[in-house]
């Protein structure tokens, strides 16, 4: 008996050795809200809640597995994953399947894959590896090389066109470069150049992209087209008030006024039913998540780990902020899901992969110290 207890105890300790419980609880909290909201959003049509629960289980396993991989071993994946990702993106560019005017997918027999998803992880991994490699002899040219490594996949994804994902990949890479110490002068210079180049960039945008940005400025100019999403989502949020309409009682949601309500626009569903109080709770959870991530980054023992943890954490922020900003009408509509909330297996797995990396960075540091 005593032996059995001892065995179980040891087994449990071993299994949870690399789990960071604060991070896990925060993420499970957001996901609990997410599951409930997906249920509300799809209750009149198809019940996707069960499927999403299944996705979560797979994603948790992925997280658990990744958390057990030490950062040093993760580094070995950096270059192959990046190269594979870029090759696949080139393949997409050449032979990709076109859906709704965008060439985003590669057909591989039974299913199709979206290589830009791989890049979301491969990008910061690659750059963190690169800066780690040249840590002792970091020169300005290394930033230029890093920028080059960033721009290739960014350009390929933007060309698809998938501006949302390109921005996420680009920002993930940029965070690594930023944390690696890109000089402030350069950052300010880039900002200034960006602002002055805006009119030129504007002419390079696709018409639908221009339209989205213009629609953001005044959604009523296209109330039945691209403005419709924003108008209806804003109505949903605004009509929720302080306390919300109550779970399953959002009229905007249940009467089909909100498009893509279980994916990109799930925040409108949540905000309508739970109101301002619910929003504060959710934003607080994201803040805690990011706070925990930054703590892990701060305590990480190698440059690679620090940069990767920092970039991944700010990646969560980028997702959450862009999504909520777009749904509440302060940012243009780009296809960015709300992390741990939006329905979708691939995105969830990618996110938990990132969480697993954070846990790995945190727990392996502690083990090393011990």
């Amino acid at each position: 008996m005593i032996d059995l207890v001892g065995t179980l105890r040891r087994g449990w300790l071993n299994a949870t050795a690399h789990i960071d419980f604060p991070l896990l609880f925060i993420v499970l909290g957001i996901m609990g809200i997410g599951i409930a909201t997906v249920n509300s959003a799809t209750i009149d049509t198809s019940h996707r809640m069960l499927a999403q629960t299944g996705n979560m289980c797979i994603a948790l396993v992925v997280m658990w597995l990744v958390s057990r991989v030490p950062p040093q071993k993760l580094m070995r994946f950096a270059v192959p994953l990046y190269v594979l990702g870029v090759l696949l993106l080139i393949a997409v560019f050449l032979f990709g399947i076109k859906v709704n005017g965008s060439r985003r997918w590669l057909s591989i027999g039974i299913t199709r894959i979206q290589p830009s998803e791989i890049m979301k992880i491969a990008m910061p991994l690659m750059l963190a590896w690169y800066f780690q490699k040249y840590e002792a002899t970091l020169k300005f040219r290394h930033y230029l090389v890093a920028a080059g490594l960033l721009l290739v996949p960014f350009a390929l994804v933007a060309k698809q066109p998938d501006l949302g994902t390109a921005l996420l990949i680009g920002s993930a890479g940029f965070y690594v470069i930023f944390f690696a110490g890109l000089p402030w002068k350069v950052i300010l210079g880039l900002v200034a150049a960006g602002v002055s180049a805006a009119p030129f960039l504007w002419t390079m945008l696709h018409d639908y992209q221009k339209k989205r940005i213009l629609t953001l400025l005044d959604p009523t100019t296209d109330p039945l087209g691209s403005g419709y999403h924003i108008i209806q989502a804003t109505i949903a949020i605004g009509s929720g008030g302080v306390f919300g309409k109550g779970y399953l009682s959002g009229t905007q949601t249940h009467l089909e006024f909100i498009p893509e309500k279980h994916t990109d626009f799930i925040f409108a569903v949540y905000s309508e039913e739970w109101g301002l109080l619910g929003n504060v709770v959710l934003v607080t959870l994201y803040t805690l998540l990011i706070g925990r991530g930054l703590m892990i980054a701060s305590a990480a023992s190698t440059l690679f780990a620090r940069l990767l943890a920092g970039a991944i954490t700010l990646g969560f922020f980028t997702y959450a902020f862009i999504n909520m900003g777009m749904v509440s009408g302060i940012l243009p509509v780009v296809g960015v899901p709300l992390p741990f909330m939006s329905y979708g297996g691939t995105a969830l797995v990618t996110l938990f992969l990132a969480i697993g990396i954070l846990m790995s960075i945190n727990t392996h540091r502690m083990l090393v110290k011990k």
Partner: protein
Amino acid sequence: MSGFHTPDDGLDRFRFRLGFAAAVVLAAFTLLIGRFIWLQIVQHDFYRTRAEDNRIALIPIVPNRGVITDRNGVVLARNYSAFTLEITPSQLGQTLEETIDALAEIIDIQPKDRKRFKRLLDEAKNFESIPIRTRLSDSEVARFAAQRYRFPGVEVKARLFRQYPLGNVASHALGYIGRITERDLKWIDENEQAANYKGTDHVGKTGLEQHYEFELHGLTGYEQVEIDAGGRALRSLKRIPPVSGNNLQLTLDAKLQEITEKAFGDRKGSLVAIEPETGGVLALVSNPTFDPNLFVDGITPDNWKELNEHPDKPMINRAINGAYPPGSTFKPFMALAALELGKRTPNQAIADPGYFNFGNHQFRDDKKGGHGMVDMYKSVVHSCDTYYYILANDMGIEAISNFMGQIGFGSKTGIDLGKDDSGESRGILPSPAWKKQRFKKPEQQKWYSGETISIGIGQGYNAYTPMQLAQATATLANNGVMFRPHLVRHIVDTRNGEKRAVEPKPIRDLGWKQKNLEVIHRAMAGVNTEGTGARAFAGAQYVAGGKTGTAQVFSLKGAQYKEGAIKKELRDHALYIAYAPIDKPKIALAVLVENGGFGAQSAAPIARMVLDYYLLGKLPQGAANEDAAAVEADE
């Protein structure tokens, strides 16, 4: 920045940058929370309203139109429910033509249905549903129901249709309903009824249906339904039932009306019968007539053409729109005027040589050689023209015009037909003032004394509607107490059954002296016992006052009037006025038969039939005979 640094330097810088990132994150999230506060607290009311507007649609429920019954409760206009096949053009899956062709394979759709649909389509808004077929049979409904998945934007609806069970009977009084046009909408708008007409697509076009439109329509109800983004109704939240339109109970007697219409046969003309004590119209005939049922679901162009272009003009309501010289039916009123104004006593007699010379013109009597000595009684009974030539000359045009104007000649009666009083003709009450206004050239504007003379026998410029003549006769029968003629006795409120009388009080009392009235009543009774109406009223079991009249359609210059020798359209109009029983009249009427010749010949027999039925319940045998040979031709 380049160059060598210790790992600790790098860590410090990294941690500073983490702190900076944390600050950016906090700032961004604060911005988001600010946005939420703006939307969910500051703008909450606005967005709540927007969400409600999104969610709720008001679907109007059209009320049942009020029912019209005659004075005895016989239904003249009612509603029945039938299925219609309707197309909403904006929701079609294929082109309109393709849809209709496909529909025609399962439901009988005639070319006329297509034509009517096209016409309705031109008038309608795109999102409205328009009937392609009305009154589907049960098997057609079933056939369509089985295939309806093929036809987005097409549906079967149960609709209420107006129905006039008696068909042609009283159609000029009832009028008809039709689809609302732009002009109707304007009218509805001016009456501040626009909101109440949401969902309604028919409106009264003429007659009572139009005059009492806002009584008959009722109050539109609403159903509040929750709708989704596609506009589909999901569930009902609240229902405010419609209030049926008020029912109209008429003063009209449907049986009397029917008998009267039959009495006209295929003759053109008009009859108006009025209850003297109330002004209620008992019968209003304008012959030929039409079937108002033809208009209910949109009249076909063929039918419309036939009605509109028929030489007999069935769409014209001769009772209020036709103006005719009253001929000798004017004489009793002239006689009364003479007594009231002190221009004659009953016994004052003239010697009638058969003509009256005025200036260098000779006004001739119908009877060659004249009637001999003629007093007032005889002048009425035998319709002596010379008596009235002289009387008119003695009275003068102003006096005649004033007196006749008071009895309603030359002004609209205000009968409750049509929109406002636009459908009614004023007629012509001749006077110097009228002439001045009527003509442009100064020499035409002058009133000549000679013109007064033919006014005295109801000719000349005189032109009145049968309605005016009937009103004047009823006023005479009612001893000078005058009512506005009206068809509706009372409006029955469908909510509480309350009855509201339309015309409970007389509009004026002309204050005629009883002894003068008795002279006229006696004379008019004489017309039917020993005078021009005696033949038509032989054997009557009541005493009726009457007066025949003949109105010249054109004047035969000097030539002898010979019927049969001239075209029918140029023959004189026959008139007759009557009331009975003479001591307490229950009914007064005016009959006009266009091109009917002498009044006694074709108009009086119709009057006899009407009075026989109304007073005795006696049903006539066939149409009133044109009993030419039996008529005394000396009116």
